């Protein structure tokens, strides 16, 4: 066991945990005032539910002994048998408990990401059930298939450094499917839903960016050159994506916006996630540079064209970003940077990794979409998933939680 690595991953765990409140703020600032608390809560409660589930069944289903390349067995139920001794299968220099804790944070933020597409109209009780089922049906298998020993995507050579596919693609696609099933918010297309508090969005952005150092850097699972490489590419991608979003806005609208810069940065972070520990620095510039124009197109055009109501662009930002990242990894990965990759990327003349990446991305898309569809339909047999019209008008803070975000803000009491 190495104390430097352990220190690094403990702090990284805290940083990734911090991203969930960060995301809650990022999302919370973007909704209308009457839905703020419901939106924040929708991300935040996952830090409760998914944590407990992870300890009980999630970790073992994700990283336990492989069953059919799809899922882990129950050997570590309730973290039994997970001790302070390192598990060399996953991280040879840190306590096994730490690896499990660090991974817990990913299991928390992933379902929280989905909620961005569902806010302002979904019942909280339905979201609660959805999150529990989605973790079991989609997340644990995804984590196992990609990262678990014996997982079949891992076996076929697909690589995902910090969860571009396990986290972002799976959440983004699920968000899209659920948003379509849930239907549009009242007045979609007629009324404009502008954010109620952009500084709040910005606070969230700052926390997310900060936390992403733990997310991508920590995924090296050691405080070594690879971790440094990952934070460097991560920061570069965020920077380029911020600038390229601003550029797109400047060209299309005449002026760059603050919300745009923040959105671009997050898109750049989501996009590099899969690639961070595999691609050279110059490739990170390219990856960040293309992330924003493509996401901008997905958010500003595709969404309007197909008229699905991905309220806060969980798909447009994380889903699309994740897919770009997965493909880019297949293009730019270099074994000399990280020999966990079995082959070099397309640009270095080898097609095998690229193929594996494309296939695994497609599988992820199909898997997440089908899983989400099934869960959604299943839940709808038992309960209303959507609030009724009146509650939607009134706002979900009152309707679902009987509280309001700024009850005495005006100072009239």
């Amino acid at each position, binding site marked *: 066991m190495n104390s430097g690595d352990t220190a690094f991953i403990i702090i990284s765990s805290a940083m990734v945990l911090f991203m969930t409140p960060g995301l809650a703020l990022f999302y919370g600032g973007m909704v209308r005032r009457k839905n703020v608390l419901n939106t924040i809560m929708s991300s935040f409660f996952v830090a409760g539910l998914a944590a407990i589930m992870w300890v009980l069944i999630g970790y073992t289903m994700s990283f336990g002994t492989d069953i059919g390349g799809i899922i882990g067995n129950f050997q570590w139920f309730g973290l039994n048998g997970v001790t302070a001794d390192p598990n060399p299968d996953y991280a040879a220099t840190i306590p096994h408990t730490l690896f499990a804790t660090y991974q817990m944070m990913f299991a928390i933020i992933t379902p929280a990401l989905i909620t961005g597409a569902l806010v302002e109209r979904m019942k909280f009780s339905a979201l609660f059930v959805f999150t529990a089922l989605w973790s079991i049906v989609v997340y644990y298998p995804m984590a196992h298939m990609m990262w678990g020993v014996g997982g079949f995507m891992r076996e076929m050579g697909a690589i995902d450094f910090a969860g571009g596919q396990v986290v972002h693609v799976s959440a983004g696609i699920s968000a899209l499917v659920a948003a379509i099933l849930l239907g549009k918010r009242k*007045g979609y297309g*007629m*009324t404009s839903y502008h954010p109620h508090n952009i500084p709040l969005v910005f606070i969230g952005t700052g926390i997310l960016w900060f936390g992403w150092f733990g997310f991508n850097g920590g995924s090296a699972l050691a405080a070594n050159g690879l971790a440094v490489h990952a934070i460097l590419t991560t920061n570069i991608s965020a920077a380029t994506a911020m600038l390229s979003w601003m550029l797109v806005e400047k060209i299309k609208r005449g002026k760059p916006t603050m919300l745009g810069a923040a959105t671009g940065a997050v898109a750049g972070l989501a996009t590099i996630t899969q690639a961070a520990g595999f691609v050279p620095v110059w490739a990170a510039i390219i990856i960040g540079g293309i992330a924003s124009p493509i996401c901008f197109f997905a958010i500003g055009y595709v969404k309007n064209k197909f008229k699905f109501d991905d309220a806060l662009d969980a798909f447009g930002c994380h889903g699309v970003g994740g897919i770009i990242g997965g493909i880019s990894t297949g293009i730019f990965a270099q074994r000399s940077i990280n020999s966990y990759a079995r082959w070099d990327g397309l640009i270095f003349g080898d097609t095998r990794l690229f193929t594996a990446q494309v296939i695994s991305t497609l599988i992820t898309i199909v898997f997440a979409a089908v899983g989400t569809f099934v869960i959604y339909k299943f839940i709808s047999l038992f309960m209303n998933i959507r609030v009724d019209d009146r509650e939607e*008008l*009134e706002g979900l803070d*009152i309707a679902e939680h*009987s*509280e*309001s975000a700024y*009850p005495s803000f005006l100072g*009239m009491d």
Partner: protein
Amino acid sequence: MKEIQAIIRPVVLEELKEELSALNIRGLTIGQVMGCGSQKGWTEFYRGSEVYMNVLPKVRVSIVVPDARVDETINAIIKVARTGEVGDGKIFITNVERVVRIRTGEEGDDAL
């Protein structure tokens, strides 16, 4: 000229603007207010304590129109703002003696 002051639910505002603009009534001023009346409030919970909210958020729309247009304006408001449930709000009509358009100094109906 009359000032038509409508206290309505915030959610109907958007529709009201459209309805009025269809009537070619373009000038209006909106304020955020809290109101109480026959409508019951709601109970909010803060850390296990009940807090009864007896004033509810409303929007106050003030529209100054020539005398001749008062009725159609009222009807337009009723049309969009009526849900039939307590809390739909009230319309108050008061007399406006003079109107001045600051930009031009025009007065009277021309200034509207």
